[in-house]
Protein backbone atom coordinates (compact mmCIF):
# COMPACT_ATOMS: atom_id res chain seq x y z
CA UNK A 1 0.00 0.00 0.00
CA UNK A 2 2.88 2.31 0.90
CA UNK A 3 4.31 1.97 -2.59
CA UNK A 4 0.92 2.72 -4.12
CA UNK A 5 0.57 5.74 -1.90
CA UNK A 6 3.99 7.02 -2.92
CA UNK A 7 3.13 6.48 -6.58
CA UNK A 8 -0.06 8.49 -6.15
CA UNK A 9 1.92 11.26 -4.51
CA UNK A 10 4.45 11.30 -7.34
CA UNK A 11 1.64 11.43 -9.88
CA UNK A 12 0.04 14.28 -7.99
CA UNK A 13 3.30 16.22 -7.84
CA UNK A 14 3.81 15.69 -11.55
CA UNK A 15 0.74 17.76 -12.35
CA UNK A 16 1.81 21.21 -13.49
CA UNK A 17 0.14 24.37 -14.63
CA UNK A 18 -0.22 24.64 -18.41
CA UNK A 19 2.52 26.58 -20.23
CA UNK A 20 2.00 30.34 -20.25
CA UNK A 21 -0.44 30.19 -17.37
CA UNK A 22 1.18 33.00 -15.36
CA UNK A 23 1.21 35.29 -18.40
CA UNK A 24 -2.50 34.66 -19.00
CA UNK A 25 -3.27 35.48 -15.37
CA UNK A 26 -1.23 38.64 -15.70
CA UNK A 27 -3.19 39.65 -18.79
CA UNK A 28 -6.49 39.28 -16.94
CA UNK A 29 -5.47 41.44 -13.99
CA UNK A 30 -7.06 44.89 -13.80
CA UNK A 31 -4.83 47.44 -15.46
CA UNK A 32 -4.83 49.94 -12.63
CA UNK A 33 -3.96 48.75 -9.23
CA UNK A 34 -6.80 49.48 -6.80
CA UNK A 35 -4.23 50.31 -4.13
CA UNK A 36 -2.58 52.99 -6.25
CA UNK A 37 -5.79 55.01 -6.45
CA UNK A 38 -7.37 53.93 -3.18
CA UNK A 39 -6.77 57.41 -1.72
CA UNK A 40 -8.82 59.14 -4.44
CA UNK A 41 -12.31 58.80 -2.88
CA UNK A 42 -11.06 60.03 0.50
CA UNK A 43 -9.25 62.96 -1.10
CA UNK A 44 -12.31 63.88 -3.15
CA UNK A 45 -14.52 63.80 -0.07
CA UNK A 46 -12.09 65.99 1.87
CA UNK A 47 -11.90 68.47 -1.00
CA UNK A 48 -15.70 68.65 -1.16
CA UNK A 49 -15.92 69.37 2.56
CA UNK A 50 -13.33 72.16 2.29
CA UNK A 51 -15.11 73.74 -0.67
CA UNK A 52 -18.47 73.56 1.11
CA UNK A 53 -17.01 75.23 4.21
CA UNK A 54 -15.46 77.99 2.12
CA UNK A 55 -18.75 78.62 0.33
CA UNK A 56 -20.77 78.70 3.54
CA UNK A 57 -18.46 81.05 5.41
CA UNK A 58 -19.44 84.44 3.82
CA UNK A 59 -23.11 83.58 3.94
CA UNK A 60 -23.01 83.07 7.71
CA UNK A 61 -25.83 85.13 9.38
CA UNK A 62 -24.81 87.90 11.86
CA UNK A 63 -24.67 86.70 15.39
CA UNK A 64 -27.57 87.81 17.59
CA UNK A 65 -26.88 90.45 20.13
CA UNK A 66 -27.33 89.41 23.71
CA UNK A 67 -29.22 91.82 25.98
CA UNK A 68 -27.86 95.02 24.59
CA UNK A 69 -24.29 93.86 24.56
CA UNK A 70 -22.38 94.11 21.39
CA UNK A 71 -21.94 91.08 19.22
CA UNK A 72 -19.66 88.52 20.74
CA UNK A 73 -16.28 88.63 19.07
CA UNK A 74 -15.60 85.66 16.93
CA UNK A 75 -12.70 83.39 17.63
CA UNK A 76 -11.27 84.32 14.26
CA UNK A 77 -11.24 88.01 15.18
CA UNK A 78 -9.66 87.23 18.52
CA UNK A 79 -6.96 85.20 16.90
CA UNK A 80 -6.23 88.09 14.54
CA UNK A 81 -5.92 90.48 17.47
CA UNK A 82 -3.54 88.11 19.15
CA UNK A 83 -1.55 87.87 15.97
CA UNK A 84 -1.29 91.65 15.64
CA UNK A 85 -0.09 92.13 19.21
CA UNK A 86 3.68 92.52 19.24
CA UNK A 87 5.27 89.61 20.83
CA UNK A 88 7.33 90.25 23.94
CA UNK A 89 10.61 88.60 23.67
CA UNK A 90 12.55 87.61 26.69
CA UNK A 91 15.90 89.42 26.81
CA UNK A 92 18.83 87.40 25.72
CA UNK A 93 21.33 86.28 28.32
CA UNK A 94 24.22 87.76 26.33
CA UNK A 95 22.66 91.18 26.38
CA UNK A 96 22.04 90.90 30.09
CA UNK A 97 25.68 90.01 30.73
CA UNK A 98 27.03 92.82 28.60
CA UNK A 99 24.74 95.37 30.17
CA UNK A 100 26.69 98.11 31.94
CA UNK A 101 24.82 100.04 34.54
CA UNK A 102 25.24 103.88 34.46
CA UNK A 103 27.62 105.21 37.15
CA UNK A 104 26.02 106.14 40.38
CA UNK A 105 26.06 109.85 41.37
CA UNK A 106 28.82 110.74 43.88
CA UNK A 107 27.88 110.53 47.50
CA UNK A 108 27.55 113.82 49.34
CA UNK A 109 30.65 114.62 51.46
CA UNK A 110 29.87 114.17 55.16
CA UNK A 111 31.55 112.90 58.26
CA UNK A 112 31.38 109.42 59.43
CA UNK A 113 27.94 108.50 60.55
CA UNK A 114 29.15 107.69 64.06
CA UNK A 115 30.46 111.21 64.53
CA UNK A 116 27.30 112.64 63.20
CA UNK A 117 25.31 110.52 65.55
CA UNK A 118 27.26 111.58 68.68
CA UNK A 119 28.57 115.11 68.09
CA UNK A 120 28.32 116.22 71.74
CA UNK A 121 30.39 113.28 73.03
CA UNK A 122 33.23 114.00 70.57
CA UNK A 123 33.43 117.65 71.50
CA UNK A 124 33.38 116.72 75.16
CA UNK A 125 36.31 114.31 74.71
CA UNK A 126 38.30 116.81 72.73
CA UNK A 127 37.74 119.41 75.39
CA UNK A 128 38.87 117.02 78.11
CA UNK A 129 42.05 116.09 76.24
CA UNK A 130 42.90 119.70 75.57
CA UNK A 131 42.43 120.53 79.20
CA UNK A 132 44.64 117.61 80.31
CA UNK A 133 47.32 118.48 77.80
CA UNK A 134 47.47 122.08 78.67
CA UNK A 135 46.96 121.55 82.30
Amino acid at each position, binding site marked *: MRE*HGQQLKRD*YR*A*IEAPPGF*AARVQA*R*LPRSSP*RRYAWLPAAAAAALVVVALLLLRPAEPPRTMVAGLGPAPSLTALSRVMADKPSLRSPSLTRLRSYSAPPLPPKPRAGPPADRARPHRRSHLETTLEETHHG
Partner: protein
Amino acid sequence: MGRSMRDLDAADSELLRRFRRGDEQAFTAIVQRFQHRICRLCAVWLSDPQLVEDAAQEVFLRSYQGLRRFRFRSAPFTWLYRTTRNVCHEFNRIRRDDALPELADDGPGPAGELQRYEAARRLRAVLAELPPRQQEVVLLRVFEDLPVRETARAMGCREGTVKALLHQATQSLRGLLDEEHAG
Protein backbone atom coordinates in the same frame (compact mmCIF):
# COMPACT_ATOMS: atom_id res chain seq x y z
CA MET B 1 20.42 21.98 0.54
CA GLY B 2 16.68 22.36 0.36
CA ARG B 3 15.00 25.15 2.22
CA SER B 4 12.77 24.30 5.14
CA MET B 5 9.02 24.90 5.17
CA ARG B 6 9.55 27.80 7.57
CA ASP B 7 12.02 29.45 5.17
CA LEU B 8 9.60 29.01 2.29
CA ASP B 9 6.77 30.53 4.31
CA ALA B 10 9.01 33.46 5.23
CA ALA B 11 9.89 33.99 1.57
CA ASP B 12 6.20 33.80 0.62
CA SER B 13 5.28 36.26 3.35
CA GLU B 14 7.97 38.66 2.16
CA LEU B 15 6.58 38.49 -1.37
CA LEU B 16 3.15 39.22 0.02
CA ARG B 17 4.42 42.21 1.98
CA ARG B 18 5.98 43.62 -1.17
CA PHE B 19 2.70 43.12 -3.03
CA ARG B 20 0.77 44.85 -0.26
CA ARG B 21 3.15 47.81 -0.54
CA GLY B 22 2.15 48.11 -4.19
CA ASP B 23 4.87 46.08 -5.91
CA GLU B 24 3.08 44.53 -8.88
CA GLN B 25 6.07 42.38 -9.76
CA ALA B 26 5.67 40.64 -6.43
CA PHE B 27 2.22 39.41 -7.48
CA THR B 28 3.68 37.97 -10.68
CA ALA B 29 6.21 36.14 -8.52
CA ILE B 30 3.38 34.86 -6.30
CA VAL B 31 1.55 33.48 -9.33
CA GLN B 32 4.69 31.80 -10.62
CA ARG B 33 5.46 30.33 -7.23
CA PHE B 34 1.99 28.89 -6.56
CA GLN B 35 0.62 28.15 -10.03
CA HIS B 36 1.46 24.45 -10.04
CA ARG B 37 0.07 23.77 -6.56
CA ILE B 38 -3.15 25.62 -7.31
CA CYS B 39 -3.59 23.83 -10.63
CA ARG B 40 -3.05 20.46 -8.90
CA LEU B 41 -5.73 21.21 -6.37
CA CYS B 42 -8.13 22.36 -9.07
CA ALA B 43 -7.37 19.27 -11.15
CA VAL B 44 -8.24 16.99 -8.24
CA TRP B 45 -11.34 18.84 -7.13
CA LEU B 46 -12.94 19.76 -10.43
CA SER B 47 -15.01 17.16 -12.11
CA ASP B 48 -14.30 18.75 -15.50
CA PRO B 49 -10.59 18.90 -16.41
CA GLN B 50 -11.32 21.52 -19.04
CA LEU B 51 -12.19 23.94 -16.27
CA VAL B 52 -8.89 23.58 -14.41
CA GLU B 53 -7.19 26.55 -15.97
CA ASP B 54 -10.25 28.79 -15.71
CA ALA B 55 -10.66 27.93 -12.04
CA ALA B 56 -6.98 28.45 -11.28
CA GLN B 57 -7.05 31.82 -13.04
CA GLU B 58 -10.11 32.76 -11.00
CA VAL B 59 -8.22 31.86 -7.81
CA PHE B 60 -5.40 34.24 -8.69
CA LEU B 61 -7.76 37.00 -9.78
CA ARG B 62 -9.51 36.80 -6.42
CA SER B 63 -6.14 36.67 -4.70
CA TYR B 64 -5.14 39.90 -6.40
CA GLN B 65 -7.88 41.63 -4.42
CA GLY B 66 -8.02 39.43 -1.33
CA LEU B 67 -4.33 39.10 -0.52
CA ARG B 68 -4.15 42.84 0.09
CA ARG B 69 -6.16 42.17 3.25
CA PHE B 70 -4.06 39.16 4.28
CA ARG B 71 -3.23 39.40 8.00
CA PHE B 72 -0.31 36.97 8.13
CA ARG B 73 -2.00 34.77 10.71
CA SER B 74 -1.21 31.73 8.58
CA ALA B 75 0.96 30.76 5.65
CA PRO B 76 0.00 32.39 2.33
CA PHE B 77 -0.63 28.97 0.82
CA THR B 78 -3.29 28.31 3.47
CA TRP B 79 -5.19 31.38 2.26
CA LEU B 80 -4.78 30.33 -1.37
CA TYR B 81 -5.93 26.80 -0.54
CA ARG B 82 -9.17 28.06 0.98
CA THR B 83 -9.83 30.30 -2.01
CA THR B 84 -9.12 27.40 -4.36
CA ARG B 85 -11.52 25.16 -2.46
CA ASN B 86 -14.28 27.77 -2.63
CA VAL B 87 -13.72 28.47 -6.33
CA CYS B 88 -13.75 24.76 -7.20
CA HIS B 89 -16.95 24.19 -5.24
CA GLU B 90 -18.55 27.09 -7.10
CA PHE B 91 -17.39 25.75 -10.48
CA ASN B 92 -18.69 22.27 -9.66
CA ARG B 93 -22.02 23.67 -8.50
CA ILE B 94 -22.44 25.81 -11.63
CA ARG B 95 -21.61 22.84 -13.78
CA ARG B 96 -24.08 20.64 -11.89
CA ASP B 97 -26.78 23.32 -12.10
CA ASP B 98 -26.21 23.64 -15.82
CA ALA B 99 -26.95 19.92 -16.03
CA LEU B 100 -23.99 19.21 -18.22
CA PRO B 101 -23.28 15.54 -18.67
CA GLU B 102 -20.55 14.20 -16.43
CA LEU B 103 -17.38 13.48 -18.29
CA ALA B 104 -16.75 9.81 -18.47
CA ASP B 105 -13.30 8.56 -17.60
CA ASP B 106 -12.51 8.22 -21.26
CA GLY B 107 -14.99 10.84 -22.34
CA PRO B 108 -14.60 13.50 -24.98
CA GLY B 109 -12.59 16.66 -24.53
CA PRO B 110 -9.37 18.24 -25.62
CA ALA B 111 -6.84 15.46 -25.59
CA GLY B 112 -4.10 17.66 -24.18
CA GLU B 113 -6.10 18.68 -21.15
CA LEU B 114 -7.25 15.15 -20.41
CA GLN B 115 -3.75 13.81 -20.72
CA ARG B 116 -2.33 16.57 -18.55
CA TYR B 117 -4.72 15.81 -15.76
CA GLU B 118 -4.83 12.05 -16.14
CA ALA B 119 -3.00 11.58 -12.83
CA ALA B 120 -5.48 13.89 -11.16
CA ARG B 121 -8.35 11.79 -12.50
CA ARG B 122 -6.86 8.62 -11.00
CA LEU B 123 -6.22 10.40 -7.73
CA ARG B 124 -9.76 11.77 -7.68
CA ALA B 125 -11.10 8.27 -8.22
CA VAL B 126 -9.21 7.04 -5.17
CA LEU B 127 -10.09 10.03 -3.00
CA ALA B 128 -13.74 9.80 -3.99
CA GLU B 129 -13.98 6.72 -1.79
CA LEU B 130 -13.25 8.88 1.25
CA PRO B 131 -15.51 11.38 3.04
CA PRO B 132 -14.81 15.00 2.02
CA ARG B 133 -12.90 15.92 5.20
CA GLN B 134 -10.63 12.90 4.85
CA GLN B 135 -10.01 13.80 1.22
CA GLU B 136 -8.88 17.25 2.31
CA VAL B 137 -6.57 15.96 4.99
CA VAL B 138 -4.92 13.51 2.57
CA LEU B 139 -4.44 16.23 -0.03
CA LEU B 140 -2.91 18.70 2.38
CA ARG B 141 -1.01 16.53 4.80
CA VAL B 142 0.12 13.71 2.50
CA PHE B 143 0.32 15.15 -1.00
CA GLU B 144 1.10 18.80 -0.19
CA ASP B 145 3.30 17.91 2.82
CA LEU B 146 1.78 20.68 4.91
CA PRO B 147 2.52 20.59 8.65
CA VAL B 148 -0.33 19.48 10.92
CA ARG B 149 -0.73 23.04 12.19
CA GLU B 150 -1.15 24.55 8.72
CA THR B 151 -3.41 21.70 7.66
CA ALA B 152 -5.64 22.46 10.65
CA ARG B 153 -5.68 26.16 9.77
CA ALA B 154 -6.51 25.45 6.13
CA MET B 155 -9.34 23.12 7.13
CA GLY B 156 -10.54 25.34 9.97
CA CYS B 157 -10.29 22.66 12.63
CA ARG B 158 -8.07 21.59 15.54
CA GLU B 159 -4.77 19.81 15.12
CA GLY B 160 -6.18 16.79 16.96
CA THR B 161 -8.97 16.57 14.41
CA VAL B 162 -6.41 16.56 11.61
CA LYS B 163 -4.53 13.67 13.20
CA ALA B 164 -7.71 11.69 13.75
CA LEU B 165 -8.94 12.32 10.20
CA LEU B 166 -5.56 11.36 8.78
CA HIS B 167 -5.54 8.12 10.76
CA GLN B 168 -9.01 7.21 9.49
CA ALA B 169 -8.10 8.17 5.93
CA THR B 170 -4.91 6.10 6.01
CA GLN B 171 -6.81 3.06 7.23
CA SER B 172 -9.43 3.45 4.51
CA LEU B 173 -6.86 4.06 1.77
CA ARG B 174 -4.80 1.07 2.84
CA GLY B 175 -7.81 -1.18 2.38
CA LEU B 176 -8.73 0.44 -0.95
CA LEU B 177 -5.24 0.27 -2.44
CA ASP B 178 -4.67 -3.29 -1.25
CA GLU B 179 -7.92 -4.34 -2.90
CA GLU B 180 -6.95 -2.53 -6.09
CA HIS B 181 -3.51 -4.08 -6.06
CA ALA B 182 -4.91 -7.56 -5.42
CA GLY B 183 -7.54 -7.11 -8.09
